[in-house]
């Protein structure tokens, strides 16, 4: 479903960009590399499609004395990526950073520099980085519950992975998920912020009682994790519920990115988001309803909320979210997933989750 280009097409695209630069240069004109602007300013929330759609805003990097270094680095990275695609090899972001150590003066000093150039380059071609030979380091997320994942081994033989059979462990989402197939009769997917909460639910076989698939996102979900949940939800036609800490980070970074994508990956949000995800908790209202112990809201949290209200098209679109965030700022409180343990260790399994899943009115869009 992701717009896949053949390696030949990718190589051609790369060459086309290089050639454009070359032609400009030999005509003694300053060459320009342009790419979609990667920020929330360049997305709008498309309600019908349910994700952040990229707007046409472009960032042009014209060759000048102050940009000549990044310009050279971008071209050098394009060249490395072309080699990777041609030889069907991959490099992680970290490996790319080390490859640059052969570039003499143009080498990257720190990995963040290399990552930024990579992100720009990826956006320039408007593909996801796996297609241009780069893979992320990060783990995709952990899965447990009523799901069979059908993968292939290196000979191409089908591998059936039963996610109920990992005991107290879990299945790990691979960095690329496009080739996976699924079998499941689960009622829903529950995406969980913290590994701790995930473990509690696995340990007490919550997936069995609730007939669901559990996914641990471990903070902001990686692209692979987002794509995995999206494909699972689309292919199997099952709903996705999200369970995070009750703080701005959980709402605006984790949930929002999972549901509609991010500004940074504006050009590929279409594929790396889960528009039908629903937020079940922990909501600010839950703090009152369940008498949860809280922490004071930090200045940085308040700032994050204000920022979201002002700049995030997703928040701007949903009154319910604005109300919830206002509520939180008013209470000056935030709450963690683990706070339910104050009532009893399994309160979350026995009481909270069943009640919340039953009562759609307590959800946030």
């Amino acid at each position, binding site marked *: 479903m992701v717009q896949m280009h053949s390696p030949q097409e990718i190589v051609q695209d*790369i*060459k086309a960009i*290089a*050639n454009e*630069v*070359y032609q400009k*240069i*030999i005509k*003694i*004109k*300053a060459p320009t590399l342009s790419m979609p602007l990667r920020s929330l300013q360049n997305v709008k929330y498309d309600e019908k499609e349910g994700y952040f759609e990229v707007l046409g805003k472009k960032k042009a990097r014209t*060759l*000048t*004395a*102050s940009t*000549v*270094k990044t*310009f*050279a*680095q971008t*071209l*050098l990275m*394009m*060249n490395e990526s*072309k080699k990777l695609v041609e030889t069907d090899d991959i490099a992680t972001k970290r490996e790319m950073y080390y490859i640059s150590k052969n*570039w*003499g*003066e*143009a080498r990257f000093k720190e990995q963040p520099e290399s990552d930024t150039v990579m992100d720009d380059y990826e956006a320039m071609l408007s593909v996801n980085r796996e297609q241009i030979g780069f893979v992320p380091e990060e783990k995709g997320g952990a899965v447990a519950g009523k799901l069979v994942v059908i993968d292939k081994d290196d000979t191409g033989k089908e591998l059936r992975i039963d996610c109920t059979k990992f005991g107290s462990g879990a299945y790990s989402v691979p960095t690329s998920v496009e080739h996976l197939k699924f079998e499941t009769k689960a009622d829903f997917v529950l995406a969980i912020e913290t590994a701790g909460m995930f473990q509690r639910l696995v340990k007490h076989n919550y997936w069995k009682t609730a007939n669901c698939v559990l996914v641990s996102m471990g903070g902001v979900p990686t692209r692979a994790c987002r794509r995995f949940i999206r494909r699972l939800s689309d292919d199997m036609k099952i709903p996705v519920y999200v369970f995070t800490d009750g703080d701005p980070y959980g709402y605006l970074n984790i949930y929002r990115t999972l549901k509609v994508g991010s500004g940074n990956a504006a050009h590929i949000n279409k594929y790396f988001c889960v528009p039908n995800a629903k937020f079940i908790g922990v909501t600010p209202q839950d703090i009152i309803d369940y008498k949860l112990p809280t922490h004071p809201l930090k200045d940085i949290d308040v700032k994050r909320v204000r920022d979201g209200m002002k700049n995030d098209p997703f928040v701007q679109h949903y009154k319910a979210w604005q109300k919830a965030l206002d509520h939180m700022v008013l209470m000056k409180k935030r709450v963690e997933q683990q706070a339910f343990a104050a009532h009893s260790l399994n309160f979350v399994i026995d009481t909270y989750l069943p009640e919340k899943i039953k009562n759609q009115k307590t959800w946030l869009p």
Partner: protein
Amino acid sequence: MTQTTLSPQGKEEKEDHDSHTATKAHEMAKKQRDISVAEFFEKNRHLLGFDNKRKALLTAVKEAVDNSLDACEEAKILPEISVEIIDMQNDRFRIVVEDNGPGIIKKQIPNIFAKLLYGSKFHKLSQTRGQQGIGISAAALYGQLSTGRRIGIVSKISPKHPAHYFELHLDTKNNTPEIAKEEETEWKKDHGTRIELDLEAIYQKGLQSVDMYLKETAIVNPHCTIIYTNPKAEQIIFPRATDELPPETKEIKPHPHGVELGMLIKMLDATEARTLQSFFTTEFSRVGDGTAKEICSKAGMLPSQKPQEVSRDQAERLMKAIPQVRIISPPTDCLSPIGEENLKRGLKKEINAEFYCATTRPPSVYRGNPFIIEAAVAYGGELGAEEPARVMRFANRVPLQYQQAACSSTKAILDTVWRNYGLQQSRGALPIGPAVILIHMSSVWVPFTSEAKEAMAHYPEIIKEMRLALQECGRELARYTNKKRRLTDELKKRGYIEKYIPYVCSALGELLSLKENNKEEISESLKKILEEKRGKIEDISDDNEEYDEEFASIGQEGEEDEGEAGAKNDKEGDDQEQENGSGKKKRRKKNDDEENEESGEEQGGMDE
């Protein structure tokens, strides 16, 4: 018999008794007597700049040279002064200063050289180096006290007159000269004066040395030639840079706003004017009939009153009336500033920097005395970037080398916000950066904090003018430092271009499988694209052709001197100021070895 024997006894007793009741007062009365100025200074030699041996040498040379320069200028002679310091061993030195000035008539020689507070400059208001009439005779006194030897003078006023040789002794009790030897002598000079003086001293290089004094004197007096022979018998010649004497400085009458009660009473008494009105118009500058009448009426007195009959009380009323009357500022043609060009040229000779600027303020007035402030700044080049700026202070073309912390010029520098001009500065400290800051005050009366003439007093009007001058220089400096920063950025960017073009070429070459000659084409094109846009690099640094390395090294401490000098310093138990100075010098050199531990001490000294 018994009676007779008794009576004297009784009388004795009685007398004893009498004297007993009055003893204390009597005893005390025996000790109470006139203190001569000479005796006073014998005990307070620090007031005259003879507080330690090193400073004594400098002060003695300075007094002699200042006098020579003043005399030459007054007589409109281009000064040519020879200074010789001879090491007589055991911390004794002989200084010989010889000039081509107008000479001194025979009768005056003893008073000038062996009587304190005798001179021509105290009673007149004009821009001269000397002002009190103490300096040279104090040097003679110091020499006499420390070595027991007399000062020797030769002077000749014209080829037609014989030269006179004097050996003088100063009678400290009566502050009168005693002529120990007097004779006519042969001297091949047409006119001039030569003095020879032995004194206890220490010779040492550095910022507060004789060498530095002579060099700085040469900088701000480009019309004079100085031939200097140091104790190591090395001769240094500072040739004159211009044949033009500074414009003649006129003597002016006092301005009413600067007069004090005692002086007014004295003037009233001494004047030849018949009426108060004519007293004011003839004895003061800028007072016409109208102003004189106004002063009198404000004081409730008649303009026709006889000045000699003015009572103390009335004089006080006049004093109160004067400030209420608007009087035009004193004339300023009596001043002769160094001038912006000469200041810059002087700095260039001494300091190899990349930027120089100087400014001469319009004349201003404090307490009725006109004055002009000049400032100059040298920046960058070989100057140390992490050190406090060096301060050069001058008053009436005389370098001031001691008491920097006490000087109003230092206050003005500390009060100026140098951060605005591209230097670092912590609160209340000298700016840090590659800079030399010069301040010169010319005035008919420079207010020194002591007779040693080391620091200028803190008059608000003076500090304000100094600040304005520094700000003018500062603004020019800021223009330069900003320009330089832009240029540095520009050069960095150009460096970028040179650095990264090859990588653009090789990446494109590989991506498009280009041939070598195509890659070269890219490289050429890229250079054109990137560099043509940037235009030509502006050359902003001053080409300093005036800089004279040999000249600049004069007075700087040599390597081998240092240990010895330091030891002498300790022995001498020098004052703070001097430790301060030598600390600075040491650090200046050590900076190369990245040893900055003494900077704290330096800073501390300045804050005082």
